[in-house]
């Protein structure tokens, strides 16, 4: 091969190299969330209530304990599951039962869940229960307008302002 032809070939190889870099560094485009969708993120950490009731230790029991551990109240450590539901426009969007964390099941339960939904006005009902048996302790019912691409965070704090513990951040 003669010199000019060799340089041409090299130029071609470098052009190919640059083209591959240039193209795949931004293309093809990736559509993470369809254009007409919004995103609901249901996320919180919350400790379920203790499974059993506390009781008082008797004097005899107290005497048996080392001095530094003589506490009158004896509480079971294990916590209840936390049950959560999210309903959108009358249909269940998500339902989960969260066990407490930790080896002795006394830790907080936590949740993070992304739920893509169509953009538009929706009525959401969020419910949470943090004890054994019975009905949902916390319920929040809210109608919101979710524009396309919007993220709505639904957080939960038992002592949140207003009723229902849930907070809709849109």
């Amino acid at each position, binding site marked *: *091969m003669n010199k000019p032809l060799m340089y041409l*070939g090299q130029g071609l190889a*470098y052009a190919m190299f640059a083209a591959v870099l240039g193209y*795949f560094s931004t293309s093809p485009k990736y559509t*993470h969330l369809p254009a007409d969708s919004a995103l609901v993120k249901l996320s919180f950490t919350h400790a379920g209530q203790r499974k059993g009731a506390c009781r008082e230790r008797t004097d005899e029991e107290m005497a048996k304990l080392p001095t530094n551990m003589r506490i009158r109240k004896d509480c079971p450590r294990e916590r209840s599951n936390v049950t959560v539901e999210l309903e959108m426009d009358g249909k269940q969007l998500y339902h989960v039962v969260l066990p407490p964390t930790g080896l002795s099941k006394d830790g907080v339960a936590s949740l993070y869940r992304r739920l893509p939904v169509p953009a538009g006005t929706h009525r959401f009902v969020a419910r949470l229960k943090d004890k054994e048996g019975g009905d949902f302790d916390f319920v929040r019912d809210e109608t919101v307008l979710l524009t396309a691409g919007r993220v709505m*965070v639904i957080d939960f704090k038992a002592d949140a302002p207003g009723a229902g513990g849930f907070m809709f*951040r849109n």
Partner: protein
Amino acid sequence: MGKAHDLHHKMSNYLRKFWQRPENLFNAPFGQALNPWYHLGALTFFLFWVVLVSGVYLYIFYRTGVREAYQTVEDLTHEQWYAGGVMRSVHRYASDAIVLTMSLHMLRNFASGRFHSYRWFSWVTGVLLIWLVYASGINGYWLVWDRLSQFLAVATAEWFDWLPLFSQPLARNFLAPGDVSDRFIMLLSFAHITIPLVLLLFMWIHTKRMNHAETTPPLPLVVGTLLALLVLSLIKPAVSHEPADLTLAPNVLNLDWFYLALYPLLYASSPGAVWALVGGITLLLLAIPWVFKPRAAIPVAEVHLDNCNGCERCFRDCPYSAIVMQPRQDGRPYALQPVVDPNLCASCGICVGACPSSMPFRSSDFVSGMELPHQELAALRTETDRALAALQGDARVMVFGCDCAYDVRELKSEGVGALSFPCIGMLPPAFVDYALRDARADGVLVTGCREGDCQYRLGIRWTEQRIAREREPHLRKRVPLERIECCWAGAHDADLARSGLAALRARIKQMPRETIPQDGAQEDVPEPEDKKMGQSL
């Protein structure tokens, strides 16, 4: 040789043939010595320096703050597009190129069977490098704190949350704008210095076991690569997405597929599936050196102290640093003796070619200081004698070849004899002299793998330098270089080898036979005794 061994041999042969096809295309425009496929490891090293230098420039202007980060990168891109903008683009494209050259480097080492036995260390540290390269690159994309960074932060958190490691979901750190602090951006930028430095450390470890590791590509490739990166940076400057906004979900993203290809998979499948994929690929890669290992272990190089004067040539030439020099044990008056580490030895025989005792002119029971037990030099000399005796015609050629390259036995004919070494680097220059002495052959053809593509890395380089009398042991001065042709032809390059042979034969036909020194022209033949050898060093 068992069936399993045959199968392994066949498979690796096919693989190599398949891989060499696209590679050979580049030999015409670049020439063998500059074929970029033969310098992928060195190119990756070079690209790392490019990324480092451009990164330092960007760092000077970068401010760590949720808003400042984005703004300073915007200013670099637009206010000083001619400097900061170009640097940013070069930084990005060189990082992308690292993924490209590293992947090809890995595939190429796999396809050419360079990963098992003593090479396991390079392979396994290489797998670690993949992780570090990806960690560095993905981390870099967070620093801009644009919509893509936001997507990566959230997606990475969601991905890691699948692991049962954290008491609270990491993704909760990216729920609302207030969740991300200036300190977080500072942490990211700190990581973007630390991780690449760890990468550099492991790049050093990766090449540590190799003698003369090629960590700088040839200058023309350096220039070409830099130019390509610069031109690309001017044609298509790297730009940011919109600034990050955690109240909005990123929808359409210009993804860098070199680094981020797995992210869409998180949502098309699940974080667990991506962990399985990534973990599976990593484990598979780590297992390769042991899964695809040839059954039969090759005997390693052996030292024969009786014929060793401790000259260190074998130590200097070994491509895998498998030889160490230790204090002499046998009472002879030399300071050092070589010791071969069987775990590192590739059985290439390059050390045999380096040893001054590899001297076929010596008496009948000839043993060198270094020998491959399954390819002893005395036996190879007998074969050479037999081949030389059978040569006929007026352009008689002795071919010395290499088991890894073109099979020189296919060149045999009435006027052509052939002998193959495990690596052409095992050929002692004295064997060339030996073949031409007494006019037993009119020319010598030396072949081996493609230039720059030696299976044992340094065999070709040392052979060329020994023949050119630039590296010990020198080819004796009395040997006329016109009677020697070096032709580097890979396993499937029959045409190259044949044309090399034809060129040599045409040339020697023009030369009168008497120019070859006759027996007795021994002016510079050394005595085989140790004393003489010691002096000549």
